[in-house]
C-alpha cells in the first residue's frame, strides 16, 4: 500500500502546475530592471548627458530647447558609450545564471526556447530602456527650463543643428518633439541590438566580461576605422546610425537616398546575433557549457592547446637550483611565468598591424608629403611612431589596452603563485617583486612598441633618419606640440612621449593590481581601468575651463600630447603629464602595499 504523502511535501516536489505563460519573462524583466547594473547604466548615461549639457550651455543664449537637447546628445559621447550602457543591466545574466546552475533550474521547469527568448527579450528591453530613459529625462528638463523660440537665425552658422540629412532637418525645425522622439527610438533600437549582441556573445565564450566588452570594443573599433582611420565606408560608424549628424569627419550625409545605408550596420549586427543563437544557442550546448569546472570535459576546447609549448613558456633553467637569493629567484619565476613568448609575438603582431593602418591614414591625410617631387625631407619612421602612439583612440583602445590586459593576471595569486609566496616567506617581498615586475614590464612594453613601429615603418618604405622630416612644420599631424620639434634631433620629443606613456602604463597597471587585490577577481581591475581610460576621452571635456592642475585628471590627457579639446600644449606644460603620473605613483605604491599586507590568499583555480 502506498504511503500517504504530506500535502506540504507534495507541493514541494510536484509543482502545482506549469508556470503561466509569460511567467518567466515577468520574472526576468523584474530581475533586469531591479538589477544594480540597470541603476549603474542609468547613472552612467545621465552623467554623460550632463557633460553634453555643459557644452550646450556654452552656446549663444538664443538657443532653444531643441538645440540644448541635441547638442547635449551629440557632445556627450553617447555613441561611444552606448554599448556599455546597453549591456550593463542584464547582458551578463545568461553566463552568470549558467555558472550558478540557475539556468538549469529554469530549463527543467519550462521549454528551453521560452527560457532563452525570455532572457533575451528582458535583456533587450532593459538595455533599450537604460539608454533611452536618460534622453527622455533630458527632453523633459530642457523643454521645462528653456522657453526660447525655435529656429533663431544665429544657429544657421553654428554646428548645433543636423544639416546633413535633409528630411531629418525639416523635422528638427518644424516638429522638434517628433525629431527627439525619432532619435530616442533609434537609440532604443540600437541599444536593444548591442544588449542582445552582448548576451549572444556569451553563448560562445563562457565569460561575463565578454558580454560587456565585446559590443563596446566592436562599436568603438567600427567608429575608429570608419570615422577616423577611414578604412571602411562611413555607414559602419555607429555615430551615423545614431543620427549624430554633421559631426562626421569623412562624409557629408545630404542625399535622402543614402538613408537606407544606415540600416546596414544594424542589420549586420542582427544577423551576427542570429548566427550566434543559431549555432551556439541549442539547449545541450548552452546547458553543458554552464557547468562548473569539474563537469567540463577534460579534453574540452582551449585556445592554449593550439599553441606549441615552446611558445607558451621560456625554458626552465635547472642550473639555477640552490643558487642566488630567494627574492631573486622568485622574481625570475615571475618573469618566467608571466612573460611568455606567445605574448611577445602577439604584442608585436598587433602593434605592427596598427602601425600599418596608421601609415595608410598618414598617406590619406597628407598625400602631398608622399609625392615623388616633394621639396624637403620625406616622412620617416619617427613620424609614424609619434603619430601612432600620440593618437588618443589608438592609445586608449589598443596600445594601453593591450598592456593592461597582459598584466592583469598578476593578482589575485593563482594557486601556484600562493605556493611560491609561501616559499618566499614574505608578503612585502612578494609585493615588491610585483611592483618591480610591473615597472620593468612597462619599460619593456614601451620599447617593444617603439621598435615594432620603427621596423614596420621601415618595411613600409619609410627611411630611418635622425633629422626631422617635412612634418616638422606641421607637427600637429604627428600628434606632438610644435616646441618639441625645435631641437635638431628627435631625442627630446622621444623622451617626453616615451616617458609619459611608460610612466602611465606603470601607474595604470598598479591601479589594475590594486583593484584585483581588493576584489580578489581577475580582469575586474583591467575592465575598470580600461573603462576609466575610455571614459576619460569624453570626460576631458568637463575639464576644459578649470585650473590647469585639474585638467590633468582624465587619464588620456597624460598619455598623449595633443588631444581634443586640449590641442595645444605650451612649452611649460611639456612635463606636466610626467608630474601627474608621478603623483599617481606616490599614491598608488603605498596603497597597493596596504592592500597586500592584509591580503587573504584564498582558493583560486589553476589557470590555463
Amino acid at each position, binding site marked *: 500500500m502506498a504511503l500517504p504523502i504530506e500535502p506540504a511535501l507534495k507541493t514541494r516536489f510536484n509543482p502545482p502546475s506549469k508556470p503561466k505563460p509569460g511567467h518567466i519573462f515577468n520574472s526576468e524583466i523584474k530581475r533586469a530592471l531591479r538589477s544594480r547594473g540597470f541603476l549603474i547604466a542609468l547613472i552612467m548615461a545621465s552623467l554623460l548627458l550632463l557633460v553634453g549639457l555643459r557644452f550646450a550651455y556654452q552656446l549663444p543664449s538664443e538657443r532653444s530647447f531643441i538645440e540644448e537637447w541635441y547638442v547635449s546628445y551629440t557632445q556627450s559621447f553617447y555613441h561611444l558609450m552606448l554599448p556599455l550602457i546597453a549591456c550593463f543591466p542584464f547582458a551578463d545574466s545568461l553566463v552568470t545564471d549558467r555558472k550558478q546552475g540557475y539556468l538549469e533550474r529554469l530549463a527543467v521547469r519550462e521549454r528551453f526556447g521560452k527560457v532563452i527568448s525570455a532572457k533575451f527579450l528582458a535583456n533587450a528591453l532593459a538595455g533599450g530602456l537604460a539608454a533611452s530613459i536618460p534622453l527622455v529625462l533630458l527632453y523633459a528638463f530642457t523643454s521645462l527650463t528653456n522657453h526660447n523660440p525655435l529656429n533663431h537665425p544665429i544657429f544657421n552658422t553654428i554646428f548645433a543643428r543636423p544639416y546633413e540629412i535633409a528630411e531629418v532637418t525639416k523635422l528638427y525645425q518644424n516638429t522638434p518633439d517628433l525629431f527627439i522622439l525619432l532619435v530616442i527610438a533609434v537609440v532604443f533600437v540600437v541599444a536593444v541590438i548591442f544588449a542582445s549582441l552582448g548576451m549572444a556573445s556569451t553563448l560562445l565564450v563562457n565569460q561575463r566580461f565578454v558580454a560587456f566588452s565585446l559590443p563596446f570594443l566592436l562599436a568603438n573599433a567600427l567608429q575608429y576605422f570608419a570615422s577616423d582611420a577611414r578604412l571602411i565606408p562611413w555607414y559602419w560608424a555607429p555615430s551615423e546610425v545614431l543620427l549624430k549628424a554633421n559631426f562626421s569627419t569623412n562624409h557629408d550625409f545630404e542625399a535622402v537616398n543614402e538613408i537606407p545605408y544606415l540600416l546596414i550596420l544594424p542589420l549586420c549586427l542582427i544577423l551576427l546575433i542570429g548566427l550566434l543563437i543559431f549555432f551556439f544557442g541549442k539547449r545541450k550546448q548552452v546547458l553543458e557549457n554552464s557547468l562548473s569546472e569539474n563537469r567540463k570535459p577534460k579534453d574540452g576546447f582551449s585556445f592554449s592547446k593550439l599553441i606549441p609549448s615552446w611558445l607558451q*613558456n621560456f625554458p626552465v633553467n635547472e642550473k639555477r637550483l640552490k643558487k642566488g637569493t630567494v627574492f631573486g*629567484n622568485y622574481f625570475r619565476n615571475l618573469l618566467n611565468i608571466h612573460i611568455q613568448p606567445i605574448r611577445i609575438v602577439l604584442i608585436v603582431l598587433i602593434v605592427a598591424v596598427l602601425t600599418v593602418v596608421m601609415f595608410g591614414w598618414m598617406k590619406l591625410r597628407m598625400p602631398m608629403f608622399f609625392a615623388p617631387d616633394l621639396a624637403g625631407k620625406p616622412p620617416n619612421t619617427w613620424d609614424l611612431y609619434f603619430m601612432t602612439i600620440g593618437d588618443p583612440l589608438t592609445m586608449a583602445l589598443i596600445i594601453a589596452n593591450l598592456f593592461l590586459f597582459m598584466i592583469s593576471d598578476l593578482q589575485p595569486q593563482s594557486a601556484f603563485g600562493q605556493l611560491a609566496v609561501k616559499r618566499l616567506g614574505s608578503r612585502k617581498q612578494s609585493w615588491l617583486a610585483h611592483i618591480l615586475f610591473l615597472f620593468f614590464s612597462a619599460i619593456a612594453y614601451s620599447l617593444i612598441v617603439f621598435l615594432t613601429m620603427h621596423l614596420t615603418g621601415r618595411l613600409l618604405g619609410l627611411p630611418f633618419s635622425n633629422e626631422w622630416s617635412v612634418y616638422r612644420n606641421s607637427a600637429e599631424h604627428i600628434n606632438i606640440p610644435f616646441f618639441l620639434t625645435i631641437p635638431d634631433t628627435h631625442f627630446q620629443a622621444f623622451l617626453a612621449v616615451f616617458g609619459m606613456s611608460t610612466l602611465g602604463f606603470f601607474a595604470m597597471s598598479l591601479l589594475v593590481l590594486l583593484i584585483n587585490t581588493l576584489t580578489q577577481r581577475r580582469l575586474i581591475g583591467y575592465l575598470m581601468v580600461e573603462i576609466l581610460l575610455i571614459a576619460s576621452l569624453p570626460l576631458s571635456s568637463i575639464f576644459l575651463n578649470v585650473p590647469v592642475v585639474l585638467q590633468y585628471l582624465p587619464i588620456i590627457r597624460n598619455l598623449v600630447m595633443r588631444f581634443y579639446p586640449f590641442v595645444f600644449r605650451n612649452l611649460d606644460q611639456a612635463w606636466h603629464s610626467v608630474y601627474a603620473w608621478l603623483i599617481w605613483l606616490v599614491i598608488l605604491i603605498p596603497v597597493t602595499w596596504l592592500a597586500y599586507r592584509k591580503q587573504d590568499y584564498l582558493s583560486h583555480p589553476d589557470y590555463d
Partner: protein
Amino acid sequence: MTTILSAKNISKAFKGKQVLENLDFELEENQIVAICGTNGSGKSVFMRILAGLVVPDSGTVTVNGIQLGGKVEFPSSTGVHFDNSGLLLTETAKNNLLLLAMVSNTVSKERVEEVIRLVGLDPNDKRLVRTYSTGMRQRLGIAQALMEDPSLLMLDEPTTGLDFAGQDWFHELIWQLQKEGKTILITSHSKEEIASFCDRAYEMAGGQLALIS
C-alpha cells in the same frame, strides 16, 4: 609529546559571515590528525590560516614555537597542499616543481625527481600538466608539499579525485611519513575515510572544532 602547532582564539569572518569563532587547536608531534566537515564549514580557511595564507581577524598561530604574523608570516618547515593543486597547467610536472624549488632555494634536481617518483609519476614525462587527470594532479600537488622534506604536512582534501587504489597508496604514504617522524594534518569530507588511518579526528561545524571520539 611536544606541541608542534597551536592555534588560540582564532576568529575569521568574510563579508560579515563568521566562519571561525574563538577556535582553539593543538597538534602534537608525529601524529596524524584529521579535520572533517561539510562544504563551507571552514576547514580550508582554517588550514590556510595555519599556513599563514589567510590572516585571522583575531587569535594567534604558533608553529614550531614561532608565532606567525610578525616577522615570520609563513611557517617554515611545513609542506602545504590545498584543494586546488597549485600547478601551472602549461608546464611539465618536473618544471612545476623546479620553479617552486628555485624559490625555496634548498632543493636539488635529484630531490625533485625523487619526489615525483615517490608519488608514482615519471619525472621525464614531457606532457604538460594540462593533460593530467585529477588524480595525477593531486599526486603532483602532494609531491610539491613533500619536496622540501618538511616536518609538518598540511594536506587539504588530498584524496579528492584519487581512485580506490590511489587512496590506498595515499594511506600507505601517510603511514610511511609518520614512521619517518613527520606530523600530518589532513582535511576530508569523509568521516569513514579518516577513521581508518588517523590518530585523532575533529569535526568542524559552526566555526568550532569538536573532537570525534
